[in-house]
């Protein structure tokens, strides 16, 4: 187990129009973002908790709360509560790039 970089621990919004070559692009939720109908997102917290955020039935984000671990360097494994994982939600990512302004993740 290796600790992920501290920069990971914040709320990120998926800017899907910037996705390329199977890599998902996330931007910090507290910065100006281009509006879009239905953005998903991720929030990582120290201590092994994450939230997968997706648009809920009235468009406000719905959080599915699970646990993250780091099985290898630059890898994040995600564990969802029973029956809580949406069919298309990744169970792991490779961290392709992480800066204070940008997170690029490849689903694995």
């Amino acid at each position: 187990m290796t600790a992920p970089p501290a920069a990971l621990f914040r709320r990120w919004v998926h800017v899907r129009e910037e996705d390329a070559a199977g890599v998902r692009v996330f931007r910090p939720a507290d910065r100006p973002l281009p509006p879009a109908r239905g953005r998903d997102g991720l929030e990582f917290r120290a201590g092994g908790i994450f939230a997968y955020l997706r648009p809920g039935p009235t468009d406000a984000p719905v959080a599915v709360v699970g646990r993250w671990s780091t099985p290898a360097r630059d890898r994040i494994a995600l564990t969802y509560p029973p029956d809580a994982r949406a069919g298309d939600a990744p169970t792991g990512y490779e961290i392709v790039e992480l800066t204070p302004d940008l997170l690029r993740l490849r689903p694995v």
Partner: protein
Amino acid sequence: MAFTGRLAPGAVREWCGTMPVHRRLLDTDPGYARAREEIETFTFDAAREEPPPLGLVTIPTIVHVVWSRPEQNVTDEQVASQIETLNRDFRKTNEDVAILPPVWAPVAADADIEFALVDVTRTRTEVAAFDTDDGVKSARTGGVDPVSTDTHLNLWVCQLGGGLLGYAQFPGGPAETDGVVVTYTAFGSTGTAAAPFDLGRTSTHEVGHWLNLRHIWGDDGDGCGGSDFVDDTPNQGGPNYGRPTYPKVSCNNAPHGDMFVNYMDYTDDAAMVMFTRGQAARMAAALRGPRSGLLAAAATS
């Protein structure tokens, strides 16, 4: 679906700041869950009984402009453009209904609902961007309180954070947060409205929720098991974005595919042009049931 159990109690509480409105209400307010069940039972029965049409219902509407930067203080002209769009979309007088694939023309509906602007409030705030925690709906948190939610639609316009265009509250929720919220760059069809959300359809979508409509894909992620509780919308996988081309097939719904032209999908403003008859019936049931105060107000005005 959302999950908040099996974590340390502190963790759950800590997360409530990011909890969605609908889910937060379901988890923390047993009365809301019960109200939602009763509304769905009523709506199901109303659809089966096919009651006579209500006729034209006009909903008195109050727009609350909440701004911290001058450009967010949208003009009366921009407010008027939004009301005009709502009236066109809910009466099927929108000219762009012409883009409908012919197969869906027979189910496109005039919902027989109009909106009358009765007031515009303007509030200056220190809040740079509002979250979905309903902060904009209370003066205590930098917003402005709603007015007469049993007889009026309250529509807040502000800067929303996280790239969010808008969000709504279903019938059956607390009166003090009842209404819809739209970000100022997706409001109306002039001024600060910016492409591709510059035709006022965010408000059409949110008011659809406010009148009890669900997303057309059934709110089950990309699965095929969810339902919007409306019979004349095709079963659909997940949301559509942008401006799809017909036909776009999912969930064995060939040959016609997803009804991405529906206001309750996630396509661009220029791509969504219709409610269905089933959706209109569901909104009428909301007006007969949980939002009957609007009918009573219309009858006496």
